[in-house]
């Protein structure tokens, strides 16, 4: 039986006991991995669900565990991997999040937005006035996703490298699995990144446990037991597990609505992102690729709150930096936003519309959105709101989605390459498989044509605007009575 050499057992509220072998136990002990204890998996969700403050470390152990179970299940069903590849997959799962920024995706979005804009400014010049780029391009202007930071950690952190190499594992190969760079050598990379992967399984089970919401009641063990590979080597599930797979996808959808898209979580995270962008702009923070690389290469803790030390980059350091920023900017809108975060006072939600409509045509909703925004702009002028005191938020969410952004079920085939990541069902012939959403008996085949459209406007009022802003909501309802208000 592959993976049978337990060195250490970790007690876990979701999985009971997580066995780790020697290399995994040593990886867990490295400082870059221990840093994940200080980075929350769910960003600011614990501002709404007080117990949802578990760490990336716990989640990473869970993903490693589920990846192992998945490969073992495939082996039991006749699709064995080598012991070495099994270990590579588990290490990739264990380390896939080692490069997460403080507050996880909340900060990551701000970092990517900020540097993408700076980068674009550096590469363009205006035709008419001949003005050149504002700055030179380079890694100083590049913001990178957490997976790429994870790759940098694997390549640059001496302690982690030494542990992996002493056991005969190549750090760059591990990174290539979670970056999906080498699916020829590691065809099961989808187990770590796809619609039905270890990452999403652990997320849902753990999030449900921590928030108290019921969406983790999925048939996890049955799903694992029904895994197979088709004649092309693609991972799929037996048809009899189709309902369990659909239940999982729907549970994920509801969890996202209740946790990730919760009105207060969205409001607070957006405010945090705005504050982080301001601090990046004022060089109070620096998360460029060049700085990240340099910070990782420090290889160890630095004194105090050294902003250029990777191990110091955790949630507490970021919140502390925001607190300093607030102290020095109390009379500004940025200060107001920082205070919202520090005192857990979400911005006021003054407008919220949503509707489920055909996914291929978002125009009806866009029209409502435009009307609500126009009505709001008029009212905002009347009560003297400054431009940076309000923000809008829009999402269209496919009921079945791949990688959170790309619809798995796009019948226009726009995203056909990424459909490799969607759930597949073994056909009757027992050799070939097809997408779940192509199965006519699947609920997903119907739901896949629809999307939930959501639009919100939030305001950060000054003290003397509180009353006027509170009244905005009912005024906007009256201004646009036919909008699909929630």
């Amino acid at each position, binding site marked *: 039986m592959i993976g049978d050499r337990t060195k250490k057992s970790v007690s876990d509220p979701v999985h009971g006991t997580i066995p780790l072998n020697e290399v995994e136990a040593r990886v867990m002990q490295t400082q870059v991995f221990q840093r994940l204890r200080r980075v929350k998996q769910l960003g600011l969700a614990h501002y709404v669900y007080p117990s949802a403050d578990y760490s990336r470390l716990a989640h990473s152990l869970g993903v490693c565990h589920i990846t192992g179970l998945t490969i073992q299940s495939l082996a039991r069903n006749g699709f064995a991997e080598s012991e070495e590849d099994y270990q590579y997959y588990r290490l990739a799962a264990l380390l896939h999040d080692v490069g997460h920024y403080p507050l996880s995706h909340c900060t990551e979005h701000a970092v990517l937005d900020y*540097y*993408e*804009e700076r*980068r*674009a*400014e*550096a*590469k*363009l*010049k*205006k*035709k*008419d006035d001949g003005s*050149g*780029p504002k700055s030179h*391009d380079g890694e100083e202007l*590049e*913001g*990178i*996703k957490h997976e*790429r930071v994870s790759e940098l950690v694997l390549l640059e952190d001496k302690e982690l490298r030494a542990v992996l190499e002493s056991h005969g594992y190549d750090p*760059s190969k591990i990174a*290539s699995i979670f*970056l*999906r*760079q*080498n*699916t*020829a050598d590691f065809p099961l990379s989808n187990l770590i990144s796809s619609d039905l992967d270890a990452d999403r399984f652990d997320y849902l089970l753990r999030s449900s446990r921590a928030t108290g919401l019921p969406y983790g009641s999925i048939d996890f063990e049955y799903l694992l037991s029904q895994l197979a590979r088709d004649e092309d080597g693609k991972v799929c599930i037996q048809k009899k597990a189709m309902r369990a797979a659909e239940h999982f996808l729907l549970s994920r959808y509801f969890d996202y609505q209740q946790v990730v898209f919760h009105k207060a979580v969205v409001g607070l995270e957006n405010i945090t992102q705005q504050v982080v962008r301001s601090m990046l702009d004022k060089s109070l923070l620096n998360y460029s690729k060049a700085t990240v690389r340099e910070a990782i290469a420090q290889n160890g803790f630095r004194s105090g709150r050294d902003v250029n030390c990777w191990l110091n980059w955790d949630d507490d350091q970021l919140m502390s930096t925001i607190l300093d920023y607030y102290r020095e900017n109390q009379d500004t809108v940025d200060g107001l936003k920082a205070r919202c975060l520090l005192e857990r006072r979400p911005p006021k939600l003054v407008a919220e519309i949503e509707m489920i409509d055909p996914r291929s045509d978002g125009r009806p909703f866009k029209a409502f959105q435009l009307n609500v925004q126009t009505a709001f702009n008029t009212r905002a002028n009347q009560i003297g709101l400054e431009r940076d005191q309000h923000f809008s938020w829009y999402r269209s969410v496919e009921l079945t989605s791949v*990688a959170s*952004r*790309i619809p798995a079920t796009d019948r226009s*085939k*726009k*995203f*056909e*390459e*990424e459909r*490799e990541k969607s759930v597949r069902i073994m056909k009757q012939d027992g050799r070939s498989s097809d997408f779940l959403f192509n199965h006519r008996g699947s609920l997903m085949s119907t739901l896949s044509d629809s999307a939930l459209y959501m639009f919100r406007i939030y305001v950060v009022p000054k003290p003397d605007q509180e009353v006027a802003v509170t009244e905005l909501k009912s005024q906007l309802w009256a201004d646009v009575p036919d909008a699909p208000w929630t």
Partner: protein
Amino acid sequence: MKMILLNVYLNELGIQLDISSKGKRIVLQKVVYLAQAAGADLGYRYSWYLNGPYSTDLTRDYYKLVDDAESQAEAPKYVLSDELSQLLESIKPLLTKPHIFREGEDDWLELVASLDYAMRVLRMSPDNAVAFVKGEKPHLAPYAEMGLNALSESSLGLASA
């Protein structure tokens, strides 16, 4: 600004915002891959999918760009920095398929982008990259050496390493 940059960049490379067929989307994906490999980096990072190097973020952005009337209206007011323009210019010869290549433009770009990816990202030797591409893409196997030669003569330079 980011969308304006993508728009101007694609214009400079002669890529229309027509993504109605898979072939056209492959052309766009691979042209941006090769231009970035030449140093004209927009920050798109690629993974390996059925048709070779592929960027989820680029897919997301070009669909956004197609719907973004404001960026399309603003784009003509801008040009690329001189450095970026020169880098794009340097890669253009590689983007044109040779006369003796009997398949489509998308196939040519898939071939050279896949070979470059095998050497640059997977760190294969030129010989191993050719063998890899032949195994992964049997329909392009007869042209693998031709693709490698084109790469070695291009500004990318990895093929002769």
